[in-house]
């Protein structure tokens, strides 16, 4: 006899509790989402500034600030995927100028034949066709074996391996000598760990050649325009 009443009672309590929990949940969500949103608002400019600093720091590693006086971030163009640079995606290229005159190009490149796949590079090439410097930005080389291409991991802190490319161009090192010693070239490699060094060396050589070839065209393009590959 009392059963239907009980069920009805239970039904109402289910509804009541559901509504109550939903309401409380809503209240908490509103308060704390607002809190998060507020924090975001406050820190937004600072975070953006940090991100910019980070980018400039990376570029600064290959292109010392003294080499240019323009707003590097604004004077950039987009590259279509460049096979010669080992790239399968669009990248940015920054143009450094000093006193309005072209000074250097900062571009990205990649070596696909590392021991464990792709090695990403950033490098700066000055207007005379010398490589100012290059850095590895991402790689998966075996720790302790091939990762000396990254100066942070290189045990030789005073003169990391990657710095031997600085200020060299095809005038000082002929293009066919732009190889590791093992392959009869000019650059050192760690014995027992040739593969990573060879990949970086070859990729940088290709990138340098590409930059020298397209230098004038690249400087001539308006800012924020797009560079399409003209020939294979």
């Amino acid at each position: 006899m009392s059963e239907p009443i009980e069920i009805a009672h239970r039904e109402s309590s289910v509804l009541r509790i559901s509504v109550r929990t939903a309401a409380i949940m809503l209240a908490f969500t509103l308060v704390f989402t607002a809190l998060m949103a507020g924090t975001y608002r406050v820190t937004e400019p600072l975070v953006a500034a940090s991100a910019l600093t980070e980018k400039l720091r990376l570029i600064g590693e290959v292109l010392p600030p003294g080499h240019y006086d323009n707003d590097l971030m604004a004077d950039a163009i987009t590259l279509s995927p460049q096979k010669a640079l080992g790239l399968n995606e669009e990248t940015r290229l920054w143009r450094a100028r000093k006193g309005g005159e072209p000074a250097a190009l900062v571009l990205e490149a990649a070596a696909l034949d590392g021991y464990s796949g792709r090695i990403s590079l950033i490098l700066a090439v000055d207007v005379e066709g010398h490589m100012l410097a290059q850095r590895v930005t991402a790689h998966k080389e075996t720790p302790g074996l091939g990762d000396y291409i990254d100066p942070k991991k290189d045990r030789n802190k005073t003169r990391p391996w990657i710095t031997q490319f600085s200020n060299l161009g095809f005038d000082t090192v002929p293009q066919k000598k732009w190889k590791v010693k093992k392959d009869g070239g000019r650059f050192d490699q760690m014995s027992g760990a040739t593969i990573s060094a060879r990949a970086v060396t070859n990729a940088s050589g290709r990138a340098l050649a590409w930059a020298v070839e397209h230098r004038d065209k690249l400087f001539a393009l308006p800012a924020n325009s797009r560079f399409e590959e003209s020939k294979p």
Partner: protein
Amino acid sequence: MFEAILVMALGAVVLGAALGYAAVRFRVEGDPLVEKIDAILPQTQCGQCGFPGCKPYAQAIAKGEADINCCPPGGDEGIHKLADLLGREFKSLSAEHGIEKPKSVAVIDEQRCIGCTLCIQACPVDAIVGAAKQMHTVVAPQCTGCELCLPPCPVDCISMQPIGESVETWKWKYPVFKINPTQREAA
């Protein structure tokens, strides 16, 4: 940002309602933990733990009101099992609750028994048979050795006798190898 809050709010309402509904609808009755604990306890129903029987002690453990080391008949092994079940650390037997004794059964000295039935009332497992003014006796296989019949007996005619080993209940010992049995004794 307004959008973000809206999405969050919507999610909150749905989630809150669903959880509230589920909490009522799928409420589990009873406490299986008590059964599990009770299964480990030795069922002597002796009350040495301070609770009137094994089940109440199991309930107390499940509620966190009693510690796991209050059961002397269960011994260290029982405490280990409880510790494993409850994910707690092992503790040695709490001394205030008694010591682990060899398993025993109660025996009524039939010469002295006056047939008062007090022990029959005290026995938690009805293992004593007899009637008023008749001699009582303990059904040994059913006796848990809880000793609860000892205090009520007005003539102290009940004693606990350890269960001895027989050829049938003898257990092979853990094989521990002695590296150097002395020649003299072995000969």
